[in-house]
């Protein structure tokens, strides 16, 4: 699914656009432990996190992850946006908390009903 579609369901603002030829988002991973984000980040992954520090951009760049979503309407360090720009990583900020964000994204990606993954 294209990132733009996911952005809509979580009322997110795009603080950093990311790659021009960004592919589709196939997976979402949500968490706050850098080691786990590192492991799960990939070329078709959207990372959702309560963290807002520069290292997120570094992890995304190293693992070729196209997009980060920060929750709780947080204001990230300017250094995060700089690092994301350098690594061509998209940065979104969404006003909802992590649970709500995940709930909405999950519903948009997989729909409701019995055939959920």
């Amino acid at each position: 699914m294209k990132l733009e579609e996911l952005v809509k369901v979580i009322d997110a603002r795009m603080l950093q656009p990311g790659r021009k030829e960004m592919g589709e988002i196939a997976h979402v991973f949500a968490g706050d432990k850098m080691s786990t984000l590192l492991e799960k980040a990939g070329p078709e992954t959207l990372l959702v996190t309560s963290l807002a520090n520069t290292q997120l951009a570094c992890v995304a760049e190293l693992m070729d992850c196209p997009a980060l979503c920060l929750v709780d309407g947080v204001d990230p360090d300017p250094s995060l946006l700089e690092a994301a720009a350098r690594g061509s990583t998209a940065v979104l900020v969404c006003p909802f908390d992590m649970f709500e964000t995940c709930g909405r994204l999950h519903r948009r990606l997989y729909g409701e009903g019995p055939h959920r993954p």
Partner: protein
Amino acid sequence: MITSSFPIAGGNFTAAGSASRMLKEQLKRIGVEGQIMRRIMIAAYEAEMNVVIHACKGNLWVRFDNKRFNMEVIDEGPGIADIALALKPGYSTASAEARQLGFGAGMGLPNIKKASDVFEVDSRAEKGTRVRSTIYLKTQTVGEPTDHCLSITSELCNGCFDCLKACPTRAVRVWNQKPRILAALCIGCTACIAACRRGVFGIREPDQKKMPQQSVAEAGQDTLVIPRAFLTQFGLKIPPRLVMAVLRILGFKDIRFSEEWEEELRRTVRRYAAEQDSYPVISPICPAVVNLIESQFPSLIGQIAPFMTPIESAVEAYGLQPVTFVAACPSQYALLTRADLSGRLQITSPAGLSAQILPLITAQTETDRSEQKPIPRPPRTGNHDPTVLEAWGMENVIDILEKTEKGLSGDFRILELSCCVYGCYGTPLFKENPFMAKNRWAASLLGRRRQVSAAPTNSLYLARTGMRLDQDMGKAIEKLARIDELTAGLPGRDCGACGAPTCSSLAEDIVMDRNPGLECVILRGRGES
């Protein structure tokens, strides 16, 4: 082979990750991608963040070629108090600041280990920590040397071709009057060095490194590890005691002998063999013999006692401390070079160290005329246990291994096989006769038992695939057929005139396309092709 180093600043969470990022750029240039890139990035980033979170500063050293990626992250910091605990998933000593930033999950070391094919971590309290990781970039490259460790001075070659015949693995060639060594076949023994009377072969001298006396900062910190034979190389008038004194003048804090680890390994293997029920157990006392087994006798690999060779145990013992090793042969040199990415370990050859001390020795002998003649004492004879077979010389070693493969040496519990006479005494890099050297050492009464341990090996002894004709079994079989066909058409004299040791080696070289324009000299003379 690319070698790089990237600094890491402790405590700086904004700049952190820069070393891993720069590494990624380099790796992309040689085409690393996909799963392998992910593993390297995980290992590098976690190791880098460990330094940022826990240490004052550090460095990320890497060495890689298209087959293997080696990484060492060394830091200066408090070190790890309990490594076993640190390796436990979930255990972390990270600060509150680090945890708030999402670190300190306690998964760093376990994740590096998971991402690596070979992983080691060691640490000294109050000094620092070293994490090492190896990731194979292509499968089936385990044990592949990408380079041999010999130096070849072609100008000295007079075309006698003695080296061709001497090499036990037929790794030597002489093409266009230049001797060459096929790295995939070379086991790092000393056969070619010994065979060549003109001194064409030797071990590489490492890049210029400072000896302690030239560097005030390092003076008194370095340990020197030498083979005992080194002390016996200077003739009757310069006894081992004197050589030791001169080595101390150079500023070494401590002088150790590689045989200390060799003897401990022998003892350890004897204890290990007592618990085994299949024999013989092969003691890894000589790295060239281990390489030989990995190359030519892979069915015996399982019988090698799972410990490091003595020089590797000695390297382990010194961990992060400054230490200088004298390499007695190419296989030791290769092990020492692989062990040291950061340049903390200095390697020198016997000739290199001799050159350093000769001026001091002559000065010393002039002032020391009252040196007493040592009383000759018979050396401690070897073991009296008839079930331990001690042997040396590549021809003997190969013969014994062939017989072992056929099951004809089961009356021996342990095989202690070295390439050179009396272990390192017999290396051709030492000029003195090995028997005289060994007796001279024994008579010097310098030996003093020190506590050492034989480290268990942490990576497997594995069959070398350099011997394989092709990664693809189908193609390998085709090549074998072509080699046999070609060999049948050759004179079969193994004369060496073409520059290969045997007719079948020439056939193999042609099929494997190792050099353009190879052909049989005899056939060409007859007008055939």
